């Protein structure tokens, strides 16, 4: 329970920080432009069948960008600012703090779904009807949860990796492709399919599209897969975070990065 409490306080901290310094909400400016681009393509190509995709993709991308952009910055920023050592000296592990802060940013990213829908409705007159609203809401919620888990893992990976910037800049498109965000996974080469199944985004994209069309077959499996992959990522992230905190204590890299 105390872990959840710490996460909650980290959410509150991030909320306060974001209010003061809302730079990462810039992604909310990108989502409408992405929607506009994609809808323009579908409209000029006369493909009304992929409008759902054009509306959903910017939402998922917004979520992913929010996580990726912010996750790698939390720990290095605390370290540069000299907050890392007093933080380590407290009895609470660092992992839940990072997870809580990421969670707050992911919530902001989730707003891209709403933006995207509005752009389609107001800008293009395409009101995307959701056939199964309850399932859609569930899909968005668990996708957010899985994103928090994955972002916690990403944060740890980015901190331990020596090429943080390179990694951060290159983790966009591979995941959009493997996650079936831009095009459904089924149109990808067959050998990529198994790989895409371990990316929770591929299950999320499918489930979201299915709930919009109202033909989401076997959705409990998708829900289980999304939650399972998210939980596994969270567990790995917390473990890796503990590892690098201990490494910093051993190597004396607690001060500056």
């Amino acid at each position, binding site marked *: 329970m105390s872990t959840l409490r710490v996460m909650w306080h980290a959410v509150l901290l991030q909320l306060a920080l974001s209010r003061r310094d809302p730079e990462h909400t810039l992604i909310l400016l990108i989502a409408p432009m992405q929607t506009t681009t994609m809808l323009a393509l579908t409209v000029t190509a006369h493909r009304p069948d992929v409008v759902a995709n054009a509306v959903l993709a910017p939402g998922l991308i917004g979520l992913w960008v929010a996580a990726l952009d912010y996750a790698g910055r939390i720990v290095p920023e605390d370290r540069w600012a000299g907050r890392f050592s007093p933080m380590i000296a407290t*009895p609470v592990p660092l992992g839940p703090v990072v997870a809580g802060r990421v969670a707050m940013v992911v919530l902001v990213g989730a707003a891209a779904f709403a933006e995207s829908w509005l752009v389609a409705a107001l800008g293009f007159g395409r009101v995307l009807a959701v056939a199964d609203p309850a399932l859609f809401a569930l899909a968005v919620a668990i996708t957010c949860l899985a994103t928090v888990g994955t972002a916690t893992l990403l944060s740890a990976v980015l901190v331990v990796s020596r090429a943080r910037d390179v990694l951060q800049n290159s983790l966009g498109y591979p995941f959009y492709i493997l996650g079936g965000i831009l095009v459904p996974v089924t149109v990808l080469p067959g050998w990529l399919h198994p790989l895409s199944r371990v990316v929770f985004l591929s299950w999320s994209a499918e489930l979201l599209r299915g709930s919009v069309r109202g033909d989401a077959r076997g959705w409990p499996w998708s829900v289980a897969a999304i939650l399972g992959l998210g939980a596994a990522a969270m567990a790995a992230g917390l473990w890796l975070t503990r590892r690098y905190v201990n490494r910093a204590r051993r190597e004396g890299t607690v001060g500056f990065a």
Partner: protein
Amino acid sequence: MEAAVHTSGLRRTYSRRHRDPVVALDDLTMTIGQNEIHGLLGPNGAGKTTLVQILSTVLLPSAGTARVLGHDVVADTRAVRSLVGLVLGGDRGLYDRLTARRNLRFWGALHKLDTRTARRRADALLERVGLAGRADDRVETFSRGMRQRLHLARGLLHEPRVLFLDEPTSGLDPVAAGAFRRLVLELRAEGRTFLLATHDMDEAAALCDRVTLIDRGRMLLTGDPARVGRFLGDRECVDFTHPDPALTEALALLPDVSDVERRDGTGWRVHTAGRDGTRRVLAWLLERDVLTARRGEPTLEEVYLRTVGDRGMRV
């Protein structure tokens, strides 16, 4: 009574790429009694921060042991973390964009305080360190002294029995430093123990019950500030001019002389131990027709620097 802090054979090295490791602490054995204000005195790079970090579980020792109120800092990290508070110097380490109150509340959560307790203690501590009127202002608008008092409040949130202060008054103006020291004395009266790392001798003398002098990770001596002051201050010196270096060689052999250094062409400074030593050295020089000798008065700072640094200047 159990010692507040006890280290035994404590050693810490930092590895460096393509170079020998730095030895930051070397076989350090020391004890701090409960309710003591213990000064850790030493020049930059002496190993003060390293020791403070090991004792507050931020850093792991390379060898040796350290205990806080009987708890091993490596094996029993959890217990140690609830017993100690870490107070950093300098203006870093806080969330500058947030208010003082928000900073403290978040740190309360990191110490597992429930929301009510965290709120109550944050308010009480802000009052205590004289920041109640600025509690809802962002830390980035704070002066150095105000930040320092907020650091102290943060270190006290979980009511630790032992506090580690790392150069808390560096960069403070004298008034702010004085206010900070008064707070430390007040807190000690409540039964807390302090380890105060500083390179400021006057601060150590003004505040500490006992002082440990370290340099290059090694302990030089430990004792009450008067004794350390005597160790440092007993070193008097005599300046004189004489053209013949042979005289200084004979001088260096006297029991009262700790060493002789050349100041310029014919100018010399001889370091003596204590007032009587100085008197005997002056007499010795007079007998040899050295008429321009006079007692020099090195400042404490100079003596201190001479004792722990600048070894290369010696003859």
